């Protein structure tokens, strides 16, 4: 299997896309750190699904907007497994994608942006700082940051969320530049609308049909659609790729 013996840390993996990513890695033999913040039961279900799938897993609670908790998460992982091979920064500040009730620009306050920047950028920044010593020591590792295709095409202008994800892509490119010489790769995966997840459950059929009509592959992504490109970027198959963003949205965005 492709990820036998690899330690993969996935933030926010008790549900949605994160859970699908965790299970997919486990299916290829990896050991997964299932990070969650609230739902311990859901995290344990993912852990047992990972084991059934042929991998190993452990759930660790940590709020990724807290520097201390991230450090504790990384410390515990290193204590148990001595290394980390792959980090998937998937967690984000809870955000409801509800096109009919979204805030318009003039309704937004700076704090809304700040919250999303904390959720996407601060958490990724902190996580990268925390794992870097371990990755540097082995001069290898793959960091994958979850962005959004809204960055390239804001079909619905979720200003605060999308701005933070845009910042995350810029952050990743700079980090790729910095870490390339150390043998550590940094890439992004930018999914389109993924349904169903808790965050997207309020997205109405009308909006989904509108997106489908403009998508060459003629459907909306499921959480499982996102796992392949993430694993590709985590594997040696992409060993000469860094600073890239893969759009996983059925061709809605082409660049």
């Amino acid at each position, binding site marked *: 299997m492709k990820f036998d013996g690899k330690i993969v840390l996935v933030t926010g993996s008790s549900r949605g896309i994160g859970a699908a990513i965790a299970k997919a890695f486990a299916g290829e033999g990896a050991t997964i750190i299932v990070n969650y913040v609230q739902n311990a039961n859901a995290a344990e279900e993912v852990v047992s699904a990972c084991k059934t799938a042929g991998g190993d897993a452990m759930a660790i609670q940590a709020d990724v907007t807290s520097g201390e908790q991230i450090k504790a998460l990384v410390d515990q992982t290193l204590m148990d497994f001595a290394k980390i091979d792959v980090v998937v920064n998937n967690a984000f500040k809870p955000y409801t994608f509800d096109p009919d009730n979204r805030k318009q620009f003039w309704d937004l306050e700076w704090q809304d942006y700040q919250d999303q920047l904390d959720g996407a950028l601060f958490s990724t920044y902190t996580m990268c700082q925390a794992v870097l010593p371990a990755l540097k020591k082995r001069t290898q590792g793959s960091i994958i940051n979850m962005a959004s295709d809204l960055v390239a095409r804001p079909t619905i202008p979720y200003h605060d969320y999308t701005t933070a994800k845009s910042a995350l892509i810029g952050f990743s490119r700079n980090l790729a530049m910095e870490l390339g010489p150390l043998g550590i790769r940094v890439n992004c995966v930018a999914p389109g609308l993924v349904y*169903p997840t808790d965050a997207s459950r309020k997205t109405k*059929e009308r909006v989904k049909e509108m997106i*489908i*009509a403009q998508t060459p*592959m*003629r*459907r*909306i992504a*499921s959480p499982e659609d996102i796992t392949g490109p993430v694993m590709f970027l985590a594997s040696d198959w992409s060993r000469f790729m860094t600073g890239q963003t893969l759009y996983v949205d059925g061709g809605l965005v082409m660049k």
Partner: protein
Amino acid sequence: MVLKAGYLPGIDDDAVEWQTLTYDRDGHAIEVSVPLLSNEQMQDLSERIKEASRQHLKSMTVSDITATIDAAIARLLDRNDTYRQQAEEYLPLITGYDAEMIRLGLTGYLKTFRQSELRRFIAEDFGNPKILDEFQPLPKGGYGKAYGPDLLAHIWAGNVPGIPLWSLISGLLVKAGNIGKVPSAEPLMASWFARIIAETDPMLGQCLAVVWWKGGDVDREQALLNQADLVVAYGNNDTLHQIRDRTPITTRCLTYSHKVSFGMVSKAALDTGKAWDVAHQVAYDIVRYDQQGCYSPHVFFVEQGGAVTPQEFAQYIANELDCFEEKFPRRTLTIEEASGVAAWRQSEEMKSFSEENASVMGDAGGAWSVAYSEAEEDLAPSGLNRTAKVIAVKQLDDVPARIAPYRAFLQTVGIAAAPEELHRLAEMLGAVGVTRISALEHMTAPEAGWHHDGRFNLLDLVTMTEVERSAETAAEAFSDYVD
């Protein structure tokens, strides 16, 4: 987890025998207990419902009744209501249909029973809805009033969630007392609806009941048939034949048998811009409730001569079905269903060996199949459960003559064509027995007030009492103001 189906006003739960139905799809076992009445209990229930119908329902106005139904339906549309939440949680487990498909399907279906739609429904059949409330002047002279039966018996079939609500609501609208027999395949929705009606208007709740017996239990069926003033039954021809034979001669029996519906796509819809969109609509009609409805399409006649050929169009449909499998996965099939699909595929594959250009798309073990043919094939049912046949034709005008021999089985035709074609085809299709023509993507969602199998859903349920002109004139002679 044991859920309770059935609704028996005035009968103590403890006095009834309950049986347990077990549903085990994909490892999520769920149990539903269903009431099995003795013949005496059925007779007692029937008399009770008839009495309540005479005493209470007959004195309600149609407006009162529609308001109560509207309030009940509003609860089933409200995603925070406990009944709605139960429906969303348990119907997928009972029927195996995808949860999203059921959620969206319920909303689309239930909103056709809001008050404004119910009024339209009544106006379709009764020019003057007040004729259900009081004697009204008739165009030919005299007065008339429409009466629903004291006891309308419904024998439902199938597993499409909520379908029993059609006839149950029809019964209430004409002020009939109702006893409905739910199928084992989906016993819950009618039961919940009856309970909500009772919670909304306890008196109206005395006028309907939901019962169960195992299909083929002739004794219990007979007990209800003997009491009914009118019977509405759904199912295959054999079942319906037996029910009709056992219904007392003085009781009317309305039957709705299995039908075959199909689609027609004009070359006008097959340009490079619109063809995909039409294929998407076609696939939706195939996917919705896995072709279990009488209005579900089995075959599509596709016209040659457009920018997109019928064969390419069939390939578009295949890809759309593949995409829908991600969105609304097909339910796990029973062994019988799976062998039905396999037999159909096999026969289509056999044809493709001898026929040029004929093909079968989709994996043998997959969740959908599309067969394609350019031969002069007739209308035949597909293997169900997301199997469909695309037949290329030189012109759509040739189709009505080809389907004419199947008059007894025809129901809905979904059409994508230009306006003048639509109306020309409608003339020809109506003449050979088609009773409903809809847009593609709407085949499985009839509009409020549609005429099921071309019949008058409400009018068929009532009898008219007429006061003829002669009686009025004669009465004049006996008035105290006569000169």
